[in-house]
């Protein structure tokens, strides 16, 4: 609860600061301080210190899982702002407003990670989506950005419609919005109404996490949006929706596991396949990353498929590993003027430190041992194997992980083994240090995942 209130307040503060404060660096420092505050109050809450005691009628419950995820999300956002806040100012003139929107999105993130009622889920998803539509179109002079925003909005509304319809059907079947009540099917065969509602919710959540065949918006929107915001969308937001996805299907539809498990397996396989195969052929690193985010979503879907203890631990690790690595790569990418693979040629010679850290991020995404990416993939596969069914899905996942090595290594190859001019870029010392911290975090988690996971059980 601490973080939710403070994050909302911070959003308002940032809004006002847009016309009260002219100096951008002050605004930036404020935002970073605000995030630090969020992180601190959230960690305090993990240790039992709550500032606000508001009766939510159990519609929001901050359990270990939610709090740990929020910590990861705030930490990622903090690192993200440290790396890229300056770039945000280059997108348009409303710098403070962008930051305000980000704090509002964080409110949504907090809501969707801790909801116990479908109403809160809907509220959270919308609080996340609407600011994102704005951020996508924030580069107003750029036609691509405008196009992406409109597309995102149209398709997003479509999925919102699906979600509302699903919630309505479920309410009709069970007479409640609470996950606990929805899960009460008391031994009888579930009604068709409930199943239909569940499927509609499944589609709309699949849309939000860009699982195939609901992923079509992803490449266009990620590509069209200003790169700074793509980074945020592809990491923290996506991770939050995943947490919501898991929570929804665990708490509300956990007993119907057998009803949807095969469907999830098929969707997972399809997502993995389309994401990875299409990423192979991209010429732009940014677009490749968009597809890779679909592919990574496919891996995260494995946790939904398995839905056991390993899966939840694994998702937490996966979310952290994926967010850290992706934020890092995007931060470097933003600095470049040329987004093609050729743009990375000879990068290692001109920016050895950046190239080295980028390599670690890419290795983690590809799931190479000693990085967090490896262990998180390992957890996912282990969870999937633990179900004892659908071995083919695990095989597909492993094969697709192998395919992913190809396009991630293309970047490494370009950086280290190809000659190139190198692009002029200004890189500050703090930027470099933040990247090193990110890379170190990834390696640390790759060796001692328990640093993170042990928080789940205290």
């Amino acid at each position, binding site marked *: 609860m601490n973080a939710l209130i403070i994050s909302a307040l911070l959003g308002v503060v940032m809004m006002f600061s847009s016309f009260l404060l002219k100096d951008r660096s002050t605004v930036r420092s404020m935002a970073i301080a605000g995030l630090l505050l969020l992180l601190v109050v959230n960690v305090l809450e993990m240790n039992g210190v709550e500032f606000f005691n508001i009766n939510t009628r159990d519609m929001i419950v901050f359990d270990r899982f939610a709090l740990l995820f929020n910590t990861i999300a705030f930490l990622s956002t903090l690192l993200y702002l440290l790396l890229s806040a300056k770039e945000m100012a280059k997108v348009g003139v409303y710098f403070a407003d962008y930051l305000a929107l980000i704090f509002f999105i964080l409110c949504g993130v907090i809501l969707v990670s801790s909801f116990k009622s479908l109403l809160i889920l809907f509220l959270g998803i919308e609080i996340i989506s609407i600011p994102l539509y704005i951020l996508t179109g924030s580069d107003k002079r750029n036609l691509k950005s405008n196009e992406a925003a409109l597309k995102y909005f149209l398709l997003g509304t479509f999925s919102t419609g699906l979600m509302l319809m699903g919630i309505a059907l479920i309410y009709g079947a069970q007479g409640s919005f609470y996950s606990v009540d929805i899960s009460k099917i008391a031994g009888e065969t579930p009604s*068709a109404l409930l199943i239909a509602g569940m499927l509609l919710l499944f589609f709309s959540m699949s849309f939000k996490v860009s699982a195939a065949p609901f992923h079509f918006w992803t490449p266009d929107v990620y590509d069209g949006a200003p790169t700074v915001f793509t980074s945020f969308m592809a990491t923290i937001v996506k991770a939050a929706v995943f947490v919501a996805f898991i929570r929804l299907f665990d708490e509300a539809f956990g007993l119907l596991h057998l009803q949807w498990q095969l469907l999830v397996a098929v969707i997972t396989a399809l997502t993995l396949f389309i994401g990875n*195969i299409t990423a192979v052929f991209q010429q732009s690193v940014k677009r490749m990353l968009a597809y890779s985010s679909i592919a990574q979503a496919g891996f995260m879907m494995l946790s939904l498929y398995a839905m056991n203890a390993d899966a939840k631990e694994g998702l937490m690790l996966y979310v952290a590993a994926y967010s850290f690595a992706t934020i890092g790569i995007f931060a470097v990418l933003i600095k470049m003027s040329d987004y093609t693979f050729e743009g990375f040629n000879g990068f290692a010679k001109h920016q050895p430190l950046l190239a080295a850290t980028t390599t670690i991020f890419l290795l983690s995404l590809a799931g190479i041992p000693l990085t967090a990416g490896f262990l998180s993939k390992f957890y996912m596969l282990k969870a999937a194997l633990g179900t004892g069914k659908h071995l083919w899905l695990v095989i597909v996942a492993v094969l697709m992980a192998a*395919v992913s090595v190809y396009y991630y290594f293309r970047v490494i190859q370009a950086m280290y083994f190809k000659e190139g001019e190198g692009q002029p870029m200004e890189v500050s010392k703090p930027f470099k240090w933040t990247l090193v911290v990110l890379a170190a975090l990834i390696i640390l988690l790759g060796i001692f995942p328990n640093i993170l996971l042990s928080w789940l059980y205290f």
Partner: protein
Amino acid sequence: MQNALQIVYLIPLLPLIGFLINGLGRKHLSKSVISVIGSGVVLASFAISIWVFLQVKGGNTHEAHYFDFISVGDLKIPFAFKIDQLSSLFLLIITGVGFLIHVYSTSYMHEEKTEHFGRYFSYLNLFIFSMLLLVMGANFVIMFIGWEGVGLCSYLLIGYWFKKTEYNKAANKAFIMNRIGDLAFLIAIFWLIQKLGTVTYSEVFTAANLAKLSTTDISVITLLLFVGATGKSAQIPLYTWLPDAMAGPTPVSALIHAATMVTAGIYMIARSNLLYSLAPLTMDIVAYVGLATALFAATIALKQNDIKKVLAYSTVSQLGFMFLALGCGAYTAAVFHVMTHAFFKALMFLGSGSVIHAMGGEQDIRNMGGLSKKLKITFITFLVGCIAIAGIPPFSGFFSKDAILLSAFAKNPVLYGIALFTALLTAFYMFRLLFITFTGKFRGTHEQEHHLHESPAPMTIPLIILAVLSIIGGFVGIPEVFMHGGDKLGEFLSPVITNHGEGHVSHSTEYILMGLSTGLVLIMIIFAWFKFKNYQRTEESGLGKVLENKWYVDELYDKVIVNPLHKFGGFLNSIFENKVVDGIVNGVGRAVSYSSRQFRLLQSGQVGNYILLMVGSIVLIFVLQFFLKR
């Protein structure tokens, strides 16, 4: 209250810190600072080890648990240190002998460039750290980490003078041979995890868990562990790396290839003694391999002319003795011999270092002779070492070797006969080395003769300390026949080591055996004296030549294993890889890029299309869910 021993993590931590400081600061620190840090951290570890030893002696053993290293599902591998009688004894040996060798090195390596000097000490500290991990770990995984660590350090230190290709080859050889053994060790660990779900000693070695293992399991695990041990402890067939490892600086040979690293295999088997005692087949194999190695290496040592090579083969041979003891179930005797061997072998290696130092890098004993006049301290201490290794009472080697011979006699008199013969060879080649080097006339160049000098104090003081230890070190394990309750070491180790199948030999027989071995050894020494007191170089022929060339084992390995491997590699490269692998890989690649292009077409950019596709999928899923599933 927390056990006072919880702070044992300091023992390995200090050398690690030393490694970091010396490694990172090697370009900035002066030699004296590096020396003080490098030796100081080991001295501090040694001090703590003494305290730990006294604690353990007072009956306080402890398993210090720090955090879970790996935790996957049910499998938990804690990062924990086990401090008990066995590990505390090894701690003393490692840090104690290690410290002396560090001190010795400060002087021996003084002519190196500062940067390399720092590198050398950082490696040494890293080595001590790894070795401490190896013996302190409370489970096989930590032992394995230390195991790999010492392998790595040994590689780094053998190849310390990396500018010489030959030395790099020796380093590679050591590393690869060790890897073969490590693989077996690793499989054994996985086997244990598979069967028991744990690798922690205190959990594996319980009656309940041991009962879960079938005879096959036990035999396979113990055999795999033993293969691991043959790699690290240089037994047949993986021993050839050790003599080549002499390419490293001499103190390294003393530390790694005599006193500590090579005893890792002994430690592992002694640690797993409960497991081994259940596997009679493996025990036999261990005993036979050990004895064969002891004899084989001893014959080679007879004709070597490189001072360090003689010592290297002698080390292999002595390790064989230790394995013989292990195979006979006399684990205490093996550990005892590890200890005494650490003293006298470190002493002799350091002594040889002193000789090489005085001779300006010359290692061929045919070019030495009469050094006793100039190198008094070195000569006397070396003599002590030789007497100790030959096994003359009351020097330390006598007691430990006697314990081994006795255990062999109890198992099988034939084993005893061969072992005794090997012990005689030992006495012979050691005194051959001593007499050729230190007596007779000087056979080197005039320049060398002019240059001869005793080594400085930092080198001679460790020699003297080690010599004293070599003399008195055996008194901790006086056999029962001489003094009731004299076997302090056996008593001390009894909580962790259960000796197995130790047959009882009557006191009179024991006296006869001791008298026999001591008498024969003395005869051997006198024989060596007459043969080598005035050594003149001669060409070897016949069997002597075969021995000089180490039974041509290296050549055999090259012919049978290395060359075919190279050829096979060439074949894979030219035919298999080009045609088969590339074909498959390129085919897959083409298929992927084709489908990739097709999928891209779906991504048309038209919102209408996207919604159509989504709705189509939704309808399809609804149909499948509601109409086909029922």
